[in-house]
């Protein structure tokens, strides 16, 4: 109990730090686990290894439950393609490094697979925090993460059966196919029947979900596959809506508990690398964080995303995450990965997972996009024009409604967007309106109005400070009353979504109630007659 208590306390500390810094919890959990080991906390080794196995099983199961293709929308095939391309990219980066270090072939295979294993948790957490989950970049990043998870687990199961001489490859691969099929059967029929039709109570539903997990893990284990592969397919079997919603209601506490505990426990297993190892690993991390996004960017761009959205997507796909650590652990179990290599992968994972929220942030993607070459506009807009700041999804609607107006000028930092708009005959300037040069180009003082759809309130307030000096009226779409007050205080004209949505809802509700009342009067009248 003491070991468990220490790990839970360490996990709690990690969660607190992560919350305070608004960063993903995983790297901090690994770090606090490592601190436990470094200070010589009395951890029972049996408990640590069994606990790690259980935590990994639930973690992989949770990852499996997230595989709902509805999240991916139109990006399914593109996501699969990008996930496959990731393998090639990672192999190009990692194999020379591994060969330079003189690693054995199977070690290299596990290593590449581990480095491909991204972090769905980090991607999802960052996207949810920014509320980009439902945007095209979020859908694509989620889709690639899901496809990657699916590929990594399938390939892991296949290579384990091939690498282990005691396991029949044919039997294992047949079982793998069987697990896919079984997962589909359970998803299609068994799970909806049990979870929705049988009117099970909470305890029965929970045990059904966990029995599916252990059932699949057991089948995998009997066939010589890693039980974790079974756990993943079990999660996939329960991932379809509305079963997934019910399952999440029961297993969320398990994932909340075991996922953080998994990272903390991993931390307790790591060793400090030598100076040479550390230098090599840092170089590798830099290579991975620069080369992988650079090689992936052209492929992601072909999905029709803007440059900034593409940059955000490739950055979100760059960390080595939970699945990478699990591949390394399985590799360790089969003797192909050593503690030093696990520590190296963990270090890569910690660093990349910590950097990703920053590297994929709007500030960084905007800065990178600003350095992308484009043609400069060779005309100036007419006076009395309307300036639209930011051409996101909302900007698109405005351009559709006002596009015929020759006086519309769009200002956006994304070069692709600007080029596309110019091709459509819409006057667009690339840059940040807060720069005097761009403000002059856009003729801000002579504008009839400035419309901002930028989601970030700070960007909008900056714009207002500038335009107040220039004298142009600014309309800003904001979500909350608090933001509206800030905009109003700087002389802007806020259009508060909440107010409008709230009014629209109440109007609808009153209309539906009066409709019901009218129906009721009619019904009463009918019966009286």
């Amino acid at each position: 109990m003491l070991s468990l208590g220490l790990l839970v306390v360490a996990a709690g500390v990690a969660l607190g730090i992560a919350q305070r810094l608004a960063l993903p919890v995983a790297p901090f959990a690994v770090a606090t686990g490592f601190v436990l080991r470094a200070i010589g906390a009395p951890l029972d080794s049996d408990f640590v290894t069994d606990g790690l196995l259980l935590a990994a099983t639930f973690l992989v199961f949770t990852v499996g439950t997230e595989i709902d293709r509805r999240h991916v929308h139109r990006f399914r095939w593109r996501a699969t393609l990008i996930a496959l391309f990731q393998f090639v990219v990672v192999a190009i980066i990692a194999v020379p490094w591994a060969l330079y270090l003189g690693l054995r072939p199977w070690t290299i295979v596990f290593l590449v697979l581990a480095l491909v294993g991204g972090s769905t948790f980090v991607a999802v957490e960052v996207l949810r925090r920014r509320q980009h989950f439902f945007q095209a970049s979020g859908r694509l990043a989620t889709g690639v993460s899901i496809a990657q998870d699916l590929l990594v687990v399938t390939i892991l199961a296949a290579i384990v059966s091939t690498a282990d001489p005691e396991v029949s490859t044919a039997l294992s691969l047949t079982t793998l196919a069987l697990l896919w099929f079984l997962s589909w059967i359970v998803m299609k029929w068994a799970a909806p029947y049990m979870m929705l039709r049988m009117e099970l109570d909470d305890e029965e539903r929970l045990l059904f979900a966990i029995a599916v997990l252990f059932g699949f893990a057991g089948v995998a284990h009997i066939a010589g596959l890693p039980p974790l592969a079974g756990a993943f397919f079990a999660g996939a079997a329960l991932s379809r809506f509305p079963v997934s919603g019910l399952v999440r209601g029961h297993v969320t506490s398990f994932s909340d508990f075991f996922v953080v505990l998994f990272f903390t426990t991993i931390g307790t297993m790591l060793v400090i690398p030598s100076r040479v190892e550390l230098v090599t690993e840092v170089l590798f991390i830099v290579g991975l964080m620069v080369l992988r996004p650079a090689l992936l960017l052209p492929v992601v761009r072909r999905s029709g995303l803007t440059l900034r959205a593409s940059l955000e997507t490739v950055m979100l796909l760059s960390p080595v995450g939970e699945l990478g650590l699990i591949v390394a652990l399985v590799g360790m179990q089969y003797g192909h990965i050593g503690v030093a290599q696990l520590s190296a992968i963990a270090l890569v994972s910690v660093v990349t997972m910590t950097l990703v929220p920053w590297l994929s942030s709007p500030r960084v993607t905007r800065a990178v996009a600003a350095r992308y070459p484009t043609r400069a506009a060779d005309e100036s807009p007419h006076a009395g024009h309307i300036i639209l700041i930011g051409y996101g999804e909302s900007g698109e609607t405005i351009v559709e409604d006002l596009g015929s107006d020759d006086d519309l000028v769009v200002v956006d930092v994304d070069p692709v967007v600007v080029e596309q708009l110019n091709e459509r005959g819409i006057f667009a300037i690339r840059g940040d309106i807060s720069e005097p040069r761009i403000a002059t180009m856009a003729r801000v003082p002579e504008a009839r109005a400035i419309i901002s759809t930028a989601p970030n309130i700070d960007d909008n307030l900056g714009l207002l400070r500038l335009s107040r000096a220039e004298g142009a009226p600014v309309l800003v779409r904001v979500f909350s009353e608090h933001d509206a007050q800030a905009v109003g205080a700087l002389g802007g004209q806020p259009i508060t979504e909440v107010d409008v949505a709230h009014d629209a809802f109440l109007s609808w509700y009153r209309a539906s109630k009066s409709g019901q009342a009218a129906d009721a009067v009619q019904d009463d009248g009918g019966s009286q007659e």
Partner: protein
Amino acid sequence: MGDPEFLETLGLMIVLSAVLLVVARRLSVPSIVLFILAGLILGPILGLIDLTAAFGAHHATGVSGAIALMSELGIALLLFLVGLELSLERVKDVGKVAVLAGIGQVSVTAGLGFGLVLAFGFSMVEAAMLATALTFSSTVVVVKLVGQKKETDSVYGQIAVGVLLVQDVVVIIALTLVAGLGGKGAASGEEMALDIAQAFGGMALMVVGSLIASRFILPKPFDWAARRPEMLLMWSLALCFGYVVIAQSLGLSPEIGAFLAGMSLAQLHVAHDLTRRLQSLKNFFIAIFFVTLGAQMQLSEAGNQVLPALALAAFVMVIKPILLIVIITRLGYSQETAFKSGLTLAQISEFSFILAAVGMSAGLIGEDILAVIAIVGLTTIVISSYLIIHLDRLYEFVDGTGVLGILRAPAPWDTSVEEKPKDHIIVVGMNTLGREIVRGLAARGFDVVAIDTDPVKLRDLPGRSIVGNVGYIQVLEEADFDRAQMIVSALQIEDTNNLLAYYARQAEIPCAIHGFDVTVMDDLRALDVAYVIDSKDVGMARLIERVLSPEPLR
């Protein structure tokens, strides 16, 4: 990475338990019985798992050690949750009747039981342990079955739960005593008294500590932690294990630490949400506990103890309810309430097993006593489950015989169930939109229930509010969603909105959901959402209207 045998054992335990639960659900057999049965099948009958080293063994290693730890975790979580529900409000509601009925029942049952067990030839210590085990009733069985009948809020349901809480306090005292008695094996009277005094001293220290923590230390950090659900869960578990470790270091049982940890959080407003979040974990680990218990039962020992065990089971099922019926009618309640309260508590408890486990671990009793408790437990839990399920018909039958007339109870005044709210509007997600909708509806005279995971966002809102995640159906049940006239969600979380729309469709309640992005609209419409709150679209329309209006913008 870990011993695969551990996962195999765990897998067998869970899969068989789930199969038995599903197969036997039409028979309304309580889950505890099925878990013990699963353990019996896997252990003594088929020999598929061997957990003989796990029971009550704090130093077991390998698979047995891991399973033993999970069982301990289950018990700790169970007691943590019991402590978590011990709010001052609850104590006030059922205070007098629960305390008097509870203490009266416990002391008389223990006294009579002690005499009966002695008459069967057991030793004094064994008789004391058995008699104590007979006094407790099962929180899990009662809460589960009365809840299934949706009668938890009835007067008899509240009295039953109140008596169970009093019994829980007695359990804590009993566990403390056992910890004190078992401290140094066979000891002199003086040493035993010292051990008991040490245990009580430690407990007093922890109670005072937990009260101070609850009042001055915990509220602020836990308010902050509530902003991130997984942090709230992990911090409360950290607190639980922290208390467990402190309890162990003071020579107390881990269960006491867990109970006091729960109690120190019970007064915080996150307690209710935390209880819901911990239910699944507790259900899982407690299932492991009971399967382990079944797997370790010595059937040969049980065979020798059948007769006394059945006599004790009859005692539990007849004497305990009679005692409760008499006490409760003397306290001014109707014969129906007294009868139903008494019959509901006619079984022994999971704590009886826990007490036996701790007693065996302390070397106070042997496997034969465990076998007796197992038989009494199985018999009383199975029979009383059916009694609870058919309680109304049973009462009508007994009332018809006129035998209850001898109680001379007052006329029924307490059998009506409190009327639940209906035709209210549930609003989920207290972002700016949600709060505006709550205020707007309340200003127009609607009865509104606001739900959010963050208690801070629920402050200063009119109407009722619930802290919780609607991903847990219990949160919606607590909001009486099946009687609501509408559900509104202002959330910007796709999965939760879809699930809410699904629940609303199942319950045939109209719902309005925030369609915060164009990509979520199709799914919402497919789920027959009555109105999609399209904030972006209406916001944009207003903006364009403003730009195009002839009115000058300056």
